[in-house]
């Protein structure tokens, strides 16, 4: 039927032909445009803000400063540490200071130039090392100790003993650079206040529910008077999963002026809003026993968090908790510090928290296997954790198609015939990974369902699905049509999806942690099945007729609800629930690279990626997610990095200077879907949006090693870094030849 079909994306045509309505397409009568004044200093106390000249400029309608919105917000209830506009001090270059609403953007821009801010510049810290060393320079007062957002130390088994008794031990430092999401649509929000004082905010967010909660709290108006609507979204990747300054500013300015207000961030402001990949320094010890089995993994992780917590508490856990599959660890320890620094805040980017340690681990595993003379594919096969098992840190793995993934990419890439034999300058590398399909526990503790869906049938045979979930391009709205068609036997084109509107749709917690398809899918199936039963009982020659007969029998319009109820999962220790997921996805990649040894310039020629998504509800969408993930991972390996100068100023906050690969820089991609049919997932499905990114980076690093014998342990793999390592290799070879 409809599940498993290559059903075209429900919003595909509207996105392609320009008819789709994004936040910036919304224009309301008498609408004002607002702009945010930003700090040129990385750390400074605000002694005063003089808005008089700006307010006197013709066309300026209202201004806003931090003192008017002093309540601190944040998605994670324990680390709420930011305000819409700086209240007493600024914490990074680009931090928001004041906001001006005017009749048009140019007037608002001009007015920003007239604001005088009296700053007392404070000493600042720009690296996590400096942040640890200088607790007296307090970046964010929320930190209880020094500049530590979160410290996690967890140990499972006798790690040191296992290392001491191991046959091969790798001890290396790996560095992962910070990168950002680069959604093509910059953040945008529009607010309107109606005659009854109800506030509506349209926002390019992937978490309407949390924005709803935080707007209400910070603005001091009841949640029942706030409505958040997410229009069509032009990419998110985790970069729209916090509440942002613009949402509070448009709301407050609409309340102050009684007029609709819009803010559209410039690309530069998107870079300052950031919430991208955390830079991490990882000191990894990995030990194999004589049989090539993983005896111990020990990881000391220093995380550069930027000026605010965002999801940093979770990052500090995910950095360790998500590493314990698809391989079996005998013992495991990790110790992670997420530090505040005077830079734009990091947060969740596709593969939140676990892409960095996965890189370090998968390269270290290759290094250890090399010591034992083991083939990289073989060492991974040998350590497979299995199905329906518990990891060393107490996560319950259900279905697990990792071996199948590994086998597929091994065969497709011609690994056995080609690895180690492609000659100088060309090589193959392999890596595997695991990721969550949502987290078992909601971000704020509550007993309500994480996801809800309402399905209504019309006499015409039209089906309306009301879903709180955010379609951020992953295609959940399309899946809802398919689920309705599957269960109700209706035409998938006769389904209307009303999504992500807090007045109209049941709550869904948001598009993060790869939870949406899994949880919304279960909720939608439940609601549709309730209706299907009534339709079956009613009978009828056509779907519309069945709807009419069922409605007559019911004596009321037909509707049903479904929910995803949180399961109790996770290890029995503090933090044991973080990273606990109802199902885990698995991925394996083989990458092929070529390296120009004279210049260090290298290229990913091809990546074979196999992903166990449980069940492909729509194979085209799954392949799209695999390809997009691999692209994004390869991009981080190749060129993406947030680079700052010695005063915390981000170099080149534009798409010219912060390079993302073009289609010409993208390797050939071969996607393979593996279906392990998870017993807990909707129709057996697990996640596909984030997991497939992980192995790309280590597979490329391992391929570079196969091509030319160097180990690159720092991202991005800039050609100058590769060339330096090649020259060191040559010097070593010469030394060896001489002795």
């Amino acid at each position, binding site marked *: 039927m409809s599940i498993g079909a290559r059903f075209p994306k429900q919003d595909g045509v509207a996105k392609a032909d320009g008819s789709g309505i994004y936040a910036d397409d919304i224009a309301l009568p008498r609408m004002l445009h607002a702009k945010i004044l*930003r700090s*040129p*200093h990385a750390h400074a106390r605000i002694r005063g803000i003089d808005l008089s000249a700006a307010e006197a400029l013709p066309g300026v309608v209202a201004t806003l400063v931090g003192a008017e919105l002093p309540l601190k917000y944040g998605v994670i209830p324990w680390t709420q540490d930011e305000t819409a506009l700086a209240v007493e001090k600024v914490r990074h*270059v680009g931090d928001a200071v004041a906001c001006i609403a005017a009749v048009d*953007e*140019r007037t608002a*821009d001009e007015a920003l130039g007239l604001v005088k801010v009296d700053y007392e510049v404070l000493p600042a810290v720009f690296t996590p090392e400096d942040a640890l060393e200088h607790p007296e320079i307090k970046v964010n007062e929320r930190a209880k100790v020094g500049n530590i957002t979160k410290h996690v130390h967890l140990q499972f088994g006798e790690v040191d003993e296992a290392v001491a008794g191991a046959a091969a031990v790798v001890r290396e430092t790996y560095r992962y650079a910070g990168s950002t999401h680069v959604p093509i649509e*910059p953040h945008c929000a529009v607010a309107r206040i109606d005659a009854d004082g109800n506030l509506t905010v349209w926002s390019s967010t992937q978490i309407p529910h949390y924005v709803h909660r935080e707007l209400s709290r910070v603005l001091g108006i009841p949640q029942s008077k706030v409505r958040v609507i997410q229009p069509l979204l032009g990419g998110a990747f985790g970069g729209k999963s916090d509440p942002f300054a613009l949402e509070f500013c448009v709301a407050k300015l609409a309340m102050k002026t009684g007029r609709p207000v819009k803010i*559209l961030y*410039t690309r*530069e402001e998107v870079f300052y809003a950031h919430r991208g990949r955390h830079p991490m320094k990882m000191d990894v010890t990995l030990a194999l026993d004589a049989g090539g089995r993983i005896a111990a993994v020990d990881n000391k992780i220093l995380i550069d968090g930027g000026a605010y917590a965002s999801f940093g508490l979770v990052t500090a856990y995910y950095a360790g908790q998500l590493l314990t599959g698809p391989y079996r660890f005998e013992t495991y320890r990790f110790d992670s510090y997420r530090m505040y620094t005077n830079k734009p805040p990091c947060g969740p980017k596709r593969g939140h928290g676990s892409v960095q340690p996965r890189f370090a681990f998968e390269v270290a595993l290759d290094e250890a296997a090399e010591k034992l003379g083991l083939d990289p594919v073989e060492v991974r096969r040998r350590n497979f954790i299995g199905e329906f098992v518990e990891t060393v840190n107490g996560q319950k793995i259900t279905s697990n198609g990792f071996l199948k993934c590994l086998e597929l990419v091994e065969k497709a890439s011609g690994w056995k015939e080609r690895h180690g034999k492609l000659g100088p300058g060309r090589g193959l590398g392999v890596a595997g990974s695991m990721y969550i399909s949502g987290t078992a526990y909601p971000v704020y503790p509550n007993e309500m369902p994480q996801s809800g869906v309402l399905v209504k049938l019309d006499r015409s045979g039209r089906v309306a699905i009301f879903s709180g979930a955010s379609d951020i391009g992953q295609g959940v709205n399309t899946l809802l049509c398919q689920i309705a068609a599957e269960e109700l036997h209706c035409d998938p084109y006769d389904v209307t999806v009303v999504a992500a509107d807090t007045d109209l749709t049941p709550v869904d917690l948001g598009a993060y942690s790869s939870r949406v398809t899994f949880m919304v899918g279960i909720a939608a199936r439940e609601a549709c099945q309730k209706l299907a039963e009534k339709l079956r009982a009613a009978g009828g020659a056509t779907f519309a007729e069945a709807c009419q007969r069922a409605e007559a029998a019911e004596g009321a319009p037909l509707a049903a609800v479904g929910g995803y109820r949180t399961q109790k999962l996770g290890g029995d220790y503090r933090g044991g629930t973080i990273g606990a997921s109802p199902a885990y996805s698995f991925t394996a990649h083989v990458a092929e690279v070529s390296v120009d040894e*004279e*210049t*260090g310039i290298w290229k990913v020629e091809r990546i074979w990626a196999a992903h166990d998504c449980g069940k492909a509800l729509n194979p085209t969408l799954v392949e799209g997610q695999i390809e997009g993930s691999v692209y994004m991972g390869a991009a981080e390996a190749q*060129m993406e990095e947030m680079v700052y*100068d010695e*005063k915390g*100023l981000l*170099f*080149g*906050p*534009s798409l*010219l*200077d912060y*390079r993302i*690969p*073009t289609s*010409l*820089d993208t390797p050939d991609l071969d996607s393979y879907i593996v279906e392990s049919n998870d017993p807990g997932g909707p129709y057996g499905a697990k996640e596909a949006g984030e997991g497939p990114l992980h192995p790309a980076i280590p597979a490329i690093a391992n391929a570079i090693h196969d091509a030319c014998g160097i180990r690159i342990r720092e991202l991005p793999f*800039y*050609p*100058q870094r590769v*060339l330096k390592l090649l020259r060191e290799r040559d010097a070593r070879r010469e030394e060896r030849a001489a002795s």
Partner: protein
Amino acid sequence: MMTLPDLTVLRPASVAEAVEALRANPGARVLAGGTDIVPNLKYGMYDTQHLVALRGLSSELRYVREDRSGDLRLGAMCSIDELGRSEVVKSRLPALADACRQIAGPQLRRMGTLGGNLCLDTRCVYVNQSHFWRSALGYCLKKDGTVCHVVAGGKRCVAAASNDTAPVLLALDAGVKIVSPRGERTMPLRDFYVADGLHNTVLAPDELLTEVRIPAAAATRRQAFAKLRMRAAIDFPALNLAVALELDGNLVRSVSLAVSALAARPALIKGLEDLRGRPADARFAEELGRRAHKQCKPLTNIGVDPGWRRDILPVLVRRAVLRAIAG
């Protein structure tokens, strides 16, 4: 989004009207394809109040033609895209066609013009940024400030020439025609650029580059263009270079090598006369690489490691020379 300053756009219908408009409106800037000036205007890099738009000059300045002497004349309003596709350019000046095809991306190549590329403002990572960003940096010599962030204590702006057509046309001994209300003048392209990042050409405020003339002999020269960039499209050069060789059998009769994306002036590598008469072989290619390495000192004005760029320059030169020899 970023807003444009309030500007008056003048739309002359002829070269004569255009240069008159430039004369009559001091500080006016020329708008050809707009691919560079529009973002720069949004960045607040120019205080100009007038733009002189050249679209109306298309019929006058958009041509590829051979004159009676056999020289090739290219109108300044030719788009980069059409030069990259032109059969005449591809067959006679393959290095120029190659350079054009490596500029930016397809949409920008269709907008950008030859004249615009040759007159492209110099670029630097410290100045091609928003006004906010430059204010946080503390500004620089090129705009609003007094310090150079590339050369400590530097008093002269070293923003980099980043045009891809310039090295090719330099190596091929091209000349340019310049028109002003006072009349017209022609000069070799090698005299057109000066070593000043604030304004790296000899153009007076009321002058317009209208034509490029490439000598007939250029078509007989072995030539190659090379561009180092960090991604395969939509990227300014981290280094670019062009080589042109006259061969006499297997022997070098003359050689010129231009390297750019270094500082304000595209560099013609000097002192190559002694290489005349040498066999055009791998050793010759190596030697050219060595000389370029000696004379070229990449800077941090381009956000790509200058040490590495200098390191690999000889390799890029050698490969380009070998490509040129191979034809």
